[in-house]
Structures are given as C-alpha cells and as structure tokens.
C-alpha cells in the first residue's frame, strides 16, 4: 500500500501567498521602507517629468482644438525665378466655390510701414507692416476684438486702422481712445480697435490692418491678396488642401503655398511637451539604484531567514513554495515603492501645474508605466535571492542555528 498518489504538492492559495509576501515587510518595516525608497524616487521623477510636460502641452493643445483645426492658409509663393509670386485677384472667389469650404477671407500686404508718430526714423526696425484685411477675417482666423471695434464697410474706406495684438504691443498702445492715431506710410490713420492674439494667424497678430478700399485709395495697394484664410468642413480639410493650389492660381499652381497652421502648432506643442531627457535619465538611474537596493535587501533577508526557510521546508514547503514566497516579497516591496513614487509624482505635477494655472494631466503611460516598471524591477531584483533561498537544502537551513 505505497500510495505515492496521495503525495500531491499543493499550490499556495493566492491569499496565503499574499500573506507570506508581507512577512519580511512586517518584521522589518524601516528596512523595507528604505529599500523601496530608491524605486519610489525613480518612479516619482519619471511620473513628474511626464506629467509636467503633458500638463504644459495640454493647455496649448486645448486652445488649438478650440480654435479649430480646419483652417487652411493660402499664400503667394515664389516664381521659378525666385521672385515673389502674385495671387490672382479672383483667387478668393474661386476658392469660395470649392464645396466643403465654409469661409474665405483675405489679407494683402501693403508696401510701407506703420509707426507711432512721424518723428520715428523710417530705418527703425520696430516698424510694423501694414496689411489690408477683409471684413470677416476675425471669425475665420479665430480671434476677436480686445478693445474698440473692427473695420466695417464704412471704416474700410477711411484712413482707419485696427491693430493686431502684437502690433499694438510693439507700438506701445494698450488702450483705444477717441482721436488716437498712428503714422502709416506718410499719413495719419485713426486707431479703431485692438485685436486679441490670433494664435493660428501670427501674421495678423503683428500687422496693422486697414480696409481694402482705403488701402487702394491712400496707400497705393494693387488689390492682389497675399494671404487667403480658408475654413473647410472638418473631415474635408485634406481634400480642400489638395485643391487649393490649382484653384487659387490655375495658371501657376506651384507658385502657391498652402499650409495648415494648427498642424504646425500641434507639432510645436508636442515639442514643448517633449520629456526632459535629463530628468528621465536621472529617474532611470534612481530606478536602477532602487533595483540594486531591493536585490541587496532580499539577499540579506534570505541569509537572515535561514531558519524560517528550514522550518518551512520541514512543514512541507517545496523549493517552489520558497521561491515564490521570496519573489512575491521582492515584487511587493518594489510595488509599494512604485505606488508611493506615483503618488509623489502626481502630487508634484499637481502642485506645479496648478501654480502655473495649467491643466493637471498625468498620462496613463506615466503612472501605469511606473507601476509596471516597479513590478518588473521587483521580479528581476528578487529572482536571484529567491532562487538562492529555494536552493538551500532543508538541513543546511536548519543547521548552525
């Protein structure tokens, strides 16, 4: 009756393994805490770097999407001979006929600069360019009037100007009052209003805007648009983009530049949110140090707990039971460090981002990656000590006590 069939090794229940994995932590709290600290610091650094950069770019990305990503900008390019090309006067009307196009507005650059007063010498580089502007421009480029009012059908015929946000700042004008004027190409223009920043159209931002009729009458403007702002139905933006060159200048489509400013800005925002490599590197080094710390503490723990290992083998533990216990302990140790690190990283991001009135954004990659990395580190760092604990023979473990 030699029934080896009943000699069946039982797996540890998950709850029992969970309890076993805390033995080392509960009996040596301070040491466990200190050894998990390296991992906590590493994870905290990585989470904070990723969180801060995401928070910084999130604000800009939000603004861009609120301004719409369906704006297309058509500009006069260059001729084959390297000269500035001209857009046909009919280009805006032609573009407006493309079906998914919802609005078309134009500006045209005027030779001559604007100054605060005639006393400023013309070679002053602080001179501002003057541009004609169609009447619906603001809505299309996604900005509004900050002060005063924009051009209307009446003021577009008069020597009246509206200042882009950057232009107003450079002229030193922060307030619109009756009778305020600027010196534009040898004559006074009255200032009707100041615009808010036009994020998608920096050219508008830095221009002094006047009406088409006024420009033709007072400033010798030739009537050719230089920039055409087009809004297309979202979903058709790329299709419209492809048609714009040939539509704007059927004779020389190559002399037309078409761009999507939101795309460029998104790229820029992403670049602004690019991780700080130095801090990420430091975080990685801290993680490595943390891993060594966990491995070290686990090796010491295995040596110190020889009699526990011996007792467990006497109670019927297999090598596998011992191995999984110590491996679980190392993973738990690292996991605690990782969780603590994520907490610190999130807190640091929240404090810093909200002090700069930014959105607090913690990318999933950051916290899930931090936890995942900690688990992995625990497993790797704990493997060798766990194998060592399992390899110890029962008599060796019980001996010399």
């Amino acid at each position, binding site marked *: *009756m*030699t029934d*080896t069939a*009943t*000699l*069946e*090794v*039982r*797996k*540890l*229940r998950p*709850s*029992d393994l969970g309890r076993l994995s805390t*033995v080392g932590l*509960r*009996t040596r709290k301070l040491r466990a805490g200190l050894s998990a600290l390296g991992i906590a610091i590493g994870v905290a650094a990585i989470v904070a770097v990723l969180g801060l950069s995401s928070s910084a770019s999130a604000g800009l990305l939000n603004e861009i999407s609120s301004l719409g990503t369906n704006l297309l900008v058509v500009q006069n390019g260059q001729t084959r001979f390297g000269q500035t090309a001209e857009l046909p006067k009919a280009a805006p009307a032609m573009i407006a006929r493309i079906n998914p196009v919802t609005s078309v507005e134009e500006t045209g650059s005027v030779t001559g600069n604007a100054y605060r007063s005639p006393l400023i010498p013309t070679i002053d580089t602080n001179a501002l360019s003057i541009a004609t502007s169609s009447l619906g421009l603001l809505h299309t480029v996604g900005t509004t009037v900050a002060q005063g009012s924009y051009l209307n059908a009446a003021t577009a015929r008069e020597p009246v100007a509206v200042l882009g946000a950057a232009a107003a700042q450079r002229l030193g004008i922060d307030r619109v009052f009756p009778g305020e004027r600027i010196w534009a190409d040898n004559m006074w223009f009255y200032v009707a209003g100041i615009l808010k920043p036009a994020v998608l159209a920096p050219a508008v931002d830095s221009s002094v805007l006047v009406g088409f009729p006024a420009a033709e009458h007072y400033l010798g403007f030739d009537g050719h648009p230089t920039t055409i702002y087009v809004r297309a139905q979202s979903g058709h933006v790329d299709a419209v983009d492809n048609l714009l060159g040939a539509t704007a200048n059927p004779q020389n489509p190559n002399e037309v530049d078409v761009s999507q400013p939101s795309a460029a800005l998104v790229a820029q925002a992403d670049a602004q949110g690019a991780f700080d490599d130095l801090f990420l590197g430091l975080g990685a080094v801290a993680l490595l140090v943390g891993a060594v710390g966990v491995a070290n503490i686990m090796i010491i723990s295995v040596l110190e707990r020889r*009699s*526990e290992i*011996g*007792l*467990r*083998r*006497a*109670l*019927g*533990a*297999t*090598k*596998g*039971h011992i191995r999984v216990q110590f491996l679980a302990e190392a993973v738990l140790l690292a996991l605690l460090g990782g969780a603590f690190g994520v907490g610190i990283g999130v807190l640091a991001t929240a404090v810093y981002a909200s002090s700069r009135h930014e959105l607090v954004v913690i990318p999933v990659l950051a916290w899930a990656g931090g936890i995942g990395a900690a688990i992995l580190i625990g497993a790797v760092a704990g493997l060798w000590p766990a194998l060592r604990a399992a390899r110890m*023979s*029962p*008599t060796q473990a*019980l001996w010399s*006590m």
Partner: protein
Amino acid sequence: MTLMTSAGRVPEVFGAARVDGDRPRPLLEVDQVTKVYPSEPPVTALRGVSFTVARGELVGFVGPSGSGKTTLLHLMGTLDRPSSGHVRVTGLDVEQLSDRELAALRATRIGFVFQQFFLAEHQSVLDNVADGLLYAGVPQAERRARALDALSMVGLEGRPHARPNQLSGGQRQRVAIARALVGSPAIVFADEPTGNLDQATGQAILGLFEDLHDLGVTIVVITHDRDIAARLGRRIEMLDGQIVFDSADKAAVSPMPAPRAHSSGKDHRP
C-alpha cells in the same frame, strides 16, 4: 485531556497504519543507513543504523554530542537522504520519492519540533500553529479551526491570540508541538525539545509527550538528558554514528550506566 476537540471531532488516525498482509507494517523503517557528509575531510555521521518504529510508539534517542542523533532525525524526517541504506516512512521509500513528493510527505504525514521552537513573532499563537497546515492545501478558516484543536491538546486553548513573545519558554514549545500535531501526522520528530528549557519545564514537556503517546501519537524524541530518556517507553542509545543499545531489544544490555528509576507520574504540567 481528551481526544474530543473543541469542534467535537476526533482527530483522525495519528499514524495511518499501513497494513502489509496480516502483519502491521512498521511506521518507520531505517535499514542499514549510513550518512557521509562530503565535507573536507568527509565526516561519517552514521554507520549502518537499523531499527523500526511501530505505530503508537514513543521512542527516545540518547547519546553524546556528535553521535549522529540530529543527522538521523533529518533522515527519518525526510529532510535529507541517506548515503546508503533505506528509510521508509509510512511504507514509502525515501529513495523512490522526488523532492516534491518528500515535501508533500512532510506536509501531510510528519511533524517536527525543534529545540529553538522557530515561532514567527509577528503572528499570533493560533496562526503559528495553523501554519503547520499551510503546505497541505488546507484553507485558512479550517487551518485555524484545527489549530484551536491542536492548542487544546497542548493545554494552550486559552491563549490563541497571544504573541509568542508573551509566552514562557515551556509555553512556546507547547505552541511548536501543537504546530507539529495540527496536521494529525503519522509521526512526530522532536530534536532536543527540552534543550532550551529548565529542568522542571523540560519534565513537563516530556509529560505532554507521554500524554500524546497515550492518545496514540507516534513520537521520536532526541535528547541527551538521560534522566528524560529513562522515562520514555523505548530508549535507543547512540555512540559514534551507531546504535549501541535499544531497550526494545530484549537481549540488549546498555553499555552506559543504568538510568535512574522510572518515574511513573504523568502529571507534569507547569
């Protein structure tokens, strides 16, 4: 003390009797066992040791330091394998079992008691005892219920939630004995269980072993206290890796001075 437990159950057979034909097979068979430690120089700790232990016996091993008692206990308890010869526990030959099967054998059929108690200080007395069933696949609730039964067998049922460091040495060893008993093992091995205790407490622990023996538990105790050994039902004396006397062997004559008179009292409780 009674076999009836707090749960109202009678603990199952201590010592699953293996019947071989008509004759009951010995619970433990040690057959021409030698053990050589491959140290430098090699140490021969056991030289051709043979004996059997029947179900329900209480056996004491005595002998001077270095005579091979612990080595023999580790072999009997399947913690180590003999260099030659055979060890059979509950009829199973250690040589034919894998390490995993030996672990399962220890988990279900063998109990150990050590001189140093080996209790986990961060756990209650109850959980220390319950851990005796940890590797036998018993769920925690049942482990605790059976631990209470085992504690009542050693007279500690009143303090299941105490920590080991709140107990006296004798009480600690009782906890360790309860842990060895909790799985109702076929055989219990105790290596110098009184070695860390004073004389009176040691006598009381021995009284406990005698009580357990009366309940049918098979126990092998190592000691180098000859007074203690004299009280045990069967005494085996070791010297230099060999058995020099076995009181079960009618013809045997102890080479050592005769032990003092057998004390009959069994009420050795602190």
